[in-house]
């Protein structure tokens, strides 16, 4: 196997307990399992008011009038605000394009858009008052798909765009378009012995985090505001909020509150500005908590997509060319759409070597719900389609689908369609080999001496089959995901590390603004500090904006980037500590000057293991502190015409094998097993790594067989904003997930690590679909697949 899996040198000793590579436990794990963890929705403040948002009941309409008088007259109401009450000229926000109104101005562009906000002394009072606001709408035609968005007489979702993409998009209803052209597809097509085409549909998935959007804004004496908030990136929120509030950034203080999951859904602002506006208006703390219904309108979703693919290959199975077109529905506001387009295009053909490629990806503006970041970020939709194509091609060629993939798999040194060389291990063929080699789950596991165990069958406890109509299927898929922010973004993180003696012991404190959303940064940062500083006691300071930005908890980047920043700051602290030691004790032992020194087990030791001093003695009553920004190597934007450029920081790979049982008569699916093999470079915390892989795998299963926000194509209204009708997998839907973790170091990354969180979300979905196709013989070109698709009753 062609890899150069030499682990990077770990300069610090492994002699300190609880360092990297160990499965230390989450500090908040027990609290979360026992229900004692304080989430953002649990916060309370004396005298606080409750905020409520009035949202549009229609998808696209002019606002003729808003009458707030009855709401204002409601006893217990402290404030009602509309667009006219915004304090400054900055009335929009957005991650990249500031196109999202804080409160609707003159029109609404999607179902559930915020129109007015209310603060009252009781949540029920706030709710009733909001319901008394009269909004008169004049309906506008809705833009819902590519045809209605790009028609010559199409209604423009945004009439007067002045963002930096408008110059290169083919139509004002296109947010961003990225072509990638490499080689000569026309010529390559002539060399192809077989060509397969496919048209695929990916449904709208929701992050479905369990902790609804919530936060508490507390006005401060200096005229500023302190927001306690569940988010993915404190400083990004701050940058968008301050101008709208009319406050300098240092008067908007942010502290991370307990986050109940994120998955990309907290990259955009939700109630942040609304709570602060109401707090500043009333002079009182204001809490806002969405209920589940509102949460479905309160964050962006995964882009639904239409994908058109053509794959060509020689008789022997070598890919000659790939041509594809990926149309993502961005909904009413841009959110992360441009970056999602960048991912969908640059990762659009998967982890395969193809010299002749034509890719086009674009995101539309429509009146559907806004879509943006979600785990997998543009790579998920593409993987679903290109992996279906690989199976189709294998079938056409009469080849084994895994062998076809392995024959075309990229290796280290391969060129991406963007021309970027993959300069770290890319064990694509090996990951496939590993999932294929895992033992198969036994057949007919439902059979027991007491009859059928329905829990092992499609339908589960609903008791729909005792084995009748059940057919097993097996499917494979592999995917490629980028790690970190791409396309030239200055993607840095900041860490402040302090070392001092407390209670006679050396203690390290790690302070970052990293949002802990469940990914395990709080565990890993402590491990890094222990390894680098040789201490056992590490305090993780609450995340806030009193320290520099940590960047977003997304793009599988936090262990890499903030982990890298913590390691870097620890190294600087270590140097200072050793400097202090040399000053204090250097004269007692020559090794202080001559040997390579390590911090281990609370002591300064030589690389030969000789103890020179206790850290506590070295530090005395001094504290050593460093705050420093850290960056991964820079990336470049993709060329707007050719898509060429070294756009990505690192690539991450995972492969899945899905085993399903399908009740072919009822169209019900039970996923029996989803085996995964993934290269993680270096598992800083193996338990967390497996948790991430199993979680990502399950989220991919969800969108394979059940998860979809259904939007009415005529009205653009959401039809299932509840957990009654937006289904996510329960434990009975979650299969056994055997995980094979490969650790092939990326020499460019801290400790050789590779971002873990997203790659397993990619290949899980197409593997399940492939297994269902294998069981049923049906073509199945959309996900999620529903019973009516399997029974011809759609």
């Amino acid at each position, binding site marked *: 196997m062609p890899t150069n899996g030499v682990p990077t040198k770990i300069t610090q000793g492994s002699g300190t307990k609880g360092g990297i590579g160990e499965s230390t436990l989450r500090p908040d794990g027990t609290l979360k399992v026992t229900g004692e963890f304080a989430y953002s929705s649990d916060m309370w403040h004396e005298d606080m008011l409750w905020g409520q948002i009035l949202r549009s009941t229609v998808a696209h309409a002019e606002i003729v009038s808003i009458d707030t008088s009855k709401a204002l007259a409601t006893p217990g109401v402290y404030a009602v605000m509309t667009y006219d009450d915004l304090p400054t000229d900055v009335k929009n926000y957005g991650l990249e394009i500031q196109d999202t109104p804080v409160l609707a101005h003159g029109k609404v562009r999607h179902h559930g858009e915020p129109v007015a906000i209310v603060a009252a002394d009781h949540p029920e009072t706030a*709710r009733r008052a909001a319901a008394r606001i009269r909004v008169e709408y004049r309906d506008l035609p809705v833009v819902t798909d590519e045809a209605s968005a790009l028609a010559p007489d199409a209604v423009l979702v945004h009439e007067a765009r002045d963002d930096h993409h408008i110059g290169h998009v083919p139509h004002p209803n296109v947010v961003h378009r990225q072509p990638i052209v490499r080689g000569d597809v026309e010529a390559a097509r002539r060399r192809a012995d077989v060509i397969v085409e496919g048209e695929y549909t990916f449904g709208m998935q929701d992050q479905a985090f369990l902790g609804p959007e919530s936060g508490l804004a507390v006005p401060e004496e200096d005229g500023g505001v302190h927001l306690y908030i569940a988010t993915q990136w404190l400083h990004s929120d701050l940058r968008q909020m301050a101008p709208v509030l009319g406050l300098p950034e240092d008067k908007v203080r942010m502290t991370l509150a307990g986050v109940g999951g994120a998955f990309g859904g907290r990259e955009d602002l939700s109630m942040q500005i609304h709570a602060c506006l109401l707090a500043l208006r009333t002079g009182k703390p204001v809490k806002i908590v969405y*209920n*589940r*219904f509102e949460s479905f309108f309160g964050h962006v979703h995964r882009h639904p997509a239409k994908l058109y693919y053509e794959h060509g290959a020689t008789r022997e199975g070598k890919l000659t060319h790939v041509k594809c077109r990926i149309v993502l529905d961005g909904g009413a506001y841009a959110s992360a759409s441009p970056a999602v387009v960048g991912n969908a295009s640059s990762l659009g053909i998967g982890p395969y070597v193809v010299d002749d490629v034509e890719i086009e990806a674009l995101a539309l503006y429509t009146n559907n719900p806004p879509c943006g970041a979600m785990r997998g970020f543009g790579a998920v939709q593409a993987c679903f389609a290109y992996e279906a194509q690989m199976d189709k091609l294998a079938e056409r060629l009469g080849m084994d689908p895994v062998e076809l993939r392995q024959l075309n798999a990229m290796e280290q040194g391969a060129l991406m369609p963007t021309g970027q060389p993959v300069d770290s291990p890319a064990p694509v063929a090996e990951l496939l080999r590993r999932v294929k080699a895992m033992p198969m789950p036994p057949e007919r596991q439902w059979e027991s001496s007491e009859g059928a165990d329905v*829990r092992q069958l*499609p*339908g*589960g*406890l*609903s*008791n*729909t*089959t*005792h084995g*009748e*109509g059940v057919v097993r299927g097996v499917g494979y898929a592999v995917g490629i995901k980028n790690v970190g922010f791409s396309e030239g973004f200055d993607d840095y993180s900041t860490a402040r590390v302090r070392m001092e003696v407390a209670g006679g012991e050396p203690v390290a404190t790690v302070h970052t603004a990293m949002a802990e959303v469940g990914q395990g940064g709080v565990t890993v940062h402590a491990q890094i500090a222990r390894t680098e500083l040789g201490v056992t006691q590490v305090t993780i300071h609450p995340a806030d904006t009193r320290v520099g930005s940590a960047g977003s908890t997304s793009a599988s980047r936090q262990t890499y980037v903030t982990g890298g920043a913590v390691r870097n700051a620890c190294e600087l602290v270590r140097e200072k500590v050793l400097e202090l030691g040399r000053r204090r004790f250097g004269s007692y032992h020559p090794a202080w000057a001559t040997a390579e020194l390590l911090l281990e087990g609370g002591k300064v030791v030589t690389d030969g293991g000789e103890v020179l001093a206790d850290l506590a003695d070295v530090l005395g009553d001094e504290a050593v502190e460093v705050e420093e920004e850290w960056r991964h190597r820079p990336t470049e934007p993709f060329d707007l015409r050719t898509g060429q450029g070294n756009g990505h920081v690192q690539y991450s790979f995972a492969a899945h094998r899905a085993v399903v049982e399908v009740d072919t*008569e*009822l*169209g*019900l699916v*039970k996923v029996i097993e989803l085996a995964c093999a993934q290269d993680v470079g270096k598992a800083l915390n193996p338990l967390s790594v497996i948790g991430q892989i199993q979680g990502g795998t399950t989220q991919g299963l969800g969108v394979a*067989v*059940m998860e979809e926000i*259904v939007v009415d194509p005529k009205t653009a209204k959401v*039809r*299932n904003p*509840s957990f*009654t*009708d937006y*289904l996510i*997998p*329960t*434990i*009975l*839907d979650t299969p056994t997930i055997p995980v094979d973790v490969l650790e092939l170091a990326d020499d460019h990354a801290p400790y050789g690590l590779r971002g873990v969180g997203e790659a397993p979300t990619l290949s899980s979905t197409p593997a399940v679909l492939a297994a269902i196709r294998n069981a049923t013989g049906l073509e199945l070109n959309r996900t999620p697949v*529903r*019973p*009516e698709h399997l*029974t011809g*009753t*759609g």
Partner: protein
Amino acid sequence: MDFLRPASWEEALAAKAEHPTAVPIAGGTDVMVEINFDHRRPEYLMDLNRIGDLDAWEVGEESVRLGASVPYARIMEHLRAELPGLALASHTVASPQIRNRGGVGGNLGTASPAGDAHPALLAAGAEVEVESVRGARRIPIDAFYTGVKRNALAPDELIRAIHIKKADGPQQYSKVGTRNAMVIAVCAFGLALHPGTRTVRTGIGSAAPTPIRARAAEEFLDAALEEGGLWDNGKTIPPSVAKRFAELCAAACNPIDDVRGTAAYRRHAVGVMARRTLTWTWESYRGAHRITEGAA
């Protein structure tokens, strides 16, 4: 919203007479969802949890008198032999937490076509014991469901208990949802064999505006079983009979397309469930029959 907490059944009836818009709440597994979703803001909520006998049951000669608030978990645990269809249906209700709280009285009060208990009650045969200050009466289950989320209760009446016929033969229950647990029905099917009267009864959920029986299918099967002497000879049901029964069950449906499934799928799935549950119950009946013969 006013919260009424009657200490006795009589107080509850008086309160309901005084406030006919009061919404009774026991387990709260349905009412609270409606309130949380803002679908409903009743003027009065009436808590029935202080009234003791609503969560008790009594097994009689012919039937079980099931208190309106007996939780599904208890039915699964204690009444599996007497009410096998309802016990199977109870298994499919939501999650363990919900099954510990919710009961059949709530399912009947809401009268949603998707309520899990309805097909089992229709198939077993049941009467709903209701009462008001004007007096008590029993409503046959076949006359109970009057429209989408409407039932035969008068505004001042409360559901006190359900009298369900004890099983005199095998019963089965199947429900289709797009998840393997904790899922609202796309459609559901209940079947009960009644060897005592040589009849079969069916119940269909979520495939018509109300829970329904497939009467034509029942009559067809009754006749076919009689004609073939199958109740006595215990022979296998001919595939053509099972197929026709399934077709008639599917034909009894009057489903809609909605976010949970298509009308065509519902009709199709009811047919599949009808055929399968007929096989399961009949095989079980034949098995018992053979044992009886052997003992004789």
